[in-house]
């Protein structure tokens, strides 16, 4: 039974996979990125307006409006789950933020005296500490999202309900709560801090839209978290083989709850940013956005079966959707075609990946 264990191993019959057959080059994200570049070049020749600064700013802003939520849902999709409550969450967080902001800025409302006082003329409202109302109201919106995420995660990870059903219910619950708290009227960010709010959400820095800056920062953080922390590793392991994850002692319940919380927080933040651009948080805001967000993630290469996905894919998916929308407008094609085309692209993207994995 003596096996010479000390001699060095040689890789005689195990070939090394070529660089172009692994990593990003062999992923759906890679192909879609290539298609996107092709599309950008085609757009450049199709319309002289496409690569103008104004249009680029528009594109960057518009895709940032779903991309942060897409980053969040990508975590959930990698674990093999799904979150359908994203659109409702965007609306509800935005609503809570703007309601808290205008509530705290109205003298006479409960708690408002801590934050504002009337100026000498008896009409102008002045903040006691500039920016504090903004901070509190955004925190209120995010805490709301955190609670919804915790409930989602608890139902799915602890009670063992199906993610689809749980979040479908949550879609309805959260949307309903939005109508309840606002009485269906929607709400507007107001008060002395509203200007800061608009500057932070729809302003720009050296011509770069603020939402785009947040997106880039969050995507970079997400890339590090997914690939260089044990949490990220556990997220992938959960999507690859949940039973193995459990057997190797990964805290499966905790990781699951965390991804749903991350997803809800991203959606909440996204909603708050969108409401700054809209100037209000109507009760029907972001209706059916969950479908856009999931579509963008899937086009970008996140696998609904779990185990695959990343921030680059999420962004590429969002950009592709926005460039198509923008391109159809510039090409003066009826914008009703957009939905049809998006559907075709979802199927094509997944199809190309399937064909590739059959070949290799």
């Amino acid at each position, binding site marked *: *039974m003596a*096996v*010479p*264990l000390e*001699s*060095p*191993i*040689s*890789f*005689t*019959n*195990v070939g*090394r*996979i070529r660089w172009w057959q*692994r990593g990003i080059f062999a992923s759906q994200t890679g192909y879609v990125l290539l298609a996107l570049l092709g599309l950008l070049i085609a757009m450049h020749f199709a319309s002289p307006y496409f690569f103008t600064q104004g249009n680029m700013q528009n594109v960057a802003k518009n895709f940032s409006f779903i991309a942060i939520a897409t980053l969040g849902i990508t975590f959930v999709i990698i674990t093999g789950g799904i979150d359908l409550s994203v659109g409702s969450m965007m609306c509800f967080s935005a609503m809570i933020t703007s309601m808290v902001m205008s509530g705290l800025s109205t003298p006479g409302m409960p708690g408002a005296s801590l934050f504002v006082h009337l100026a000498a003329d008896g009409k102008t409202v002045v903040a006691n500490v500039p920016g504090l109302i903004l901070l509190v109201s955004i925190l209120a919106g995010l805490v709301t999202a955190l609670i919804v995420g915790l409930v989602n995660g608890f139902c799915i990870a602890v009670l063992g309900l199906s993610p689809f059903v749980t979040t479908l219910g949550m879609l309805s619950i959260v949307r309903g709560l939005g109508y309840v708290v606002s009485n269906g009227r929607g709400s507007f960010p107001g008060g002395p801090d509203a200007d800061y709010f608009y500057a932070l959400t729809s302003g720009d820095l050296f011509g770069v839209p603020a939402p785009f800056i947040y997106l880039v920062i969050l995507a970079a953080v997400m890339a*590090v978290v997914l*690939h*260089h*922390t*044990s949490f990220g*590793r*556990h997220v*992938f*392991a959960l*999507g*690859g*083989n949940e*039973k*193995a*994850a*459990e*057997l*190797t*002692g*990964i805290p499966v319940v905790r990781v699951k709850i965390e991804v749903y919380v991350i997803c809800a927080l991203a959606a909440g933040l996204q909603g708050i940013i969108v409401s700054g651009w809209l100037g209000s948080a109507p009760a029907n805001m972001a209706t059916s956005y969950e479908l856009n967000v999931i579509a963008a993630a899937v086009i970008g290469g996140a696998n609904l079966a779990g*185990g*695959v996905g990343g921030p680059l894919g999420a962004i590429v998916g969002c950009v592709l959707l926005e460039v198509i929308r923008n391109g159809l407008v510039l090409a003066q094609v009826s914008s009703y075609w957009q939905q049809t085309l998006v559907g075709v692209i979802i199927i094509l993207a997944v199809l190309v990946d399937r064909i590739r994995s059959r070949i290799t």
Partner: protein
Amino acid sequence: METAGAAGQPVLELTGIGKEFGAIRALHDVDMQVFPGEVVGLMGDNGAGKSTLVKIIAGNFRPTQGEVRFGGNAVHFYRPIDARVVGIEVVYQDLALADNLTAAANVFLGRELKRKFGPFAFLDHNAMAARALELFGELRSETRPHDLVKQMSGGQRQAVAIARTRLSNAKLVMMDEPTAAISVRQVEQVLGLIHRLKEQGVAVMLISHRMPDVFAVCDRVVVMRRGEKRADKSIRDTSPEEVTALITGAKEAA
């Protein structure tokens, strides 16, 4: 081959273990001892209770009756991690690997090596890859730490699963059909590894259907039938024919 350490204290001691699933009695009054540096073959037909016994020792199930002692102390496992903490490692039949991760990532799954940067801890990819390569080298397996598990052969997957048990200083390694789905040469390697574990004083429980493997590496064989222990014999005092008869029930007990 002497039954190493048989005189010393058993690393694992089961007394009167029973397990019921509703009306089904999966295990009844099983007593068993495993000593350090000893390789015990656990044999039995499908449904004989081998898997249930393994799962009780590994912390997947709690026994309905009886006591588990490990290293001299009574232990109660609520989850598999509890068993792993005291030094029991299991190589599962389906290997429990995440296909979408690399070999090194799978070896270190759940106990990643990290480097601290202020309040943050990041994965130490290089250290994990180096240690994984070392372990694969010990196993004489042609497995690259950076390759994805989904692109690997059955033997390479086995090496990854076994390498995982070598990370911690396990006192008892249980292997569920480790030689069922791999090539002849790799069977040889796995049996070689079992010998290596034995040399280092690790107790090994080998759950297998393959009679030649059991007789090649085991010191002792335990035969289960219908949830009961029917035989517990030194490998020198028995023969493949007798074990087969015990498994099938042609011979009631020995």
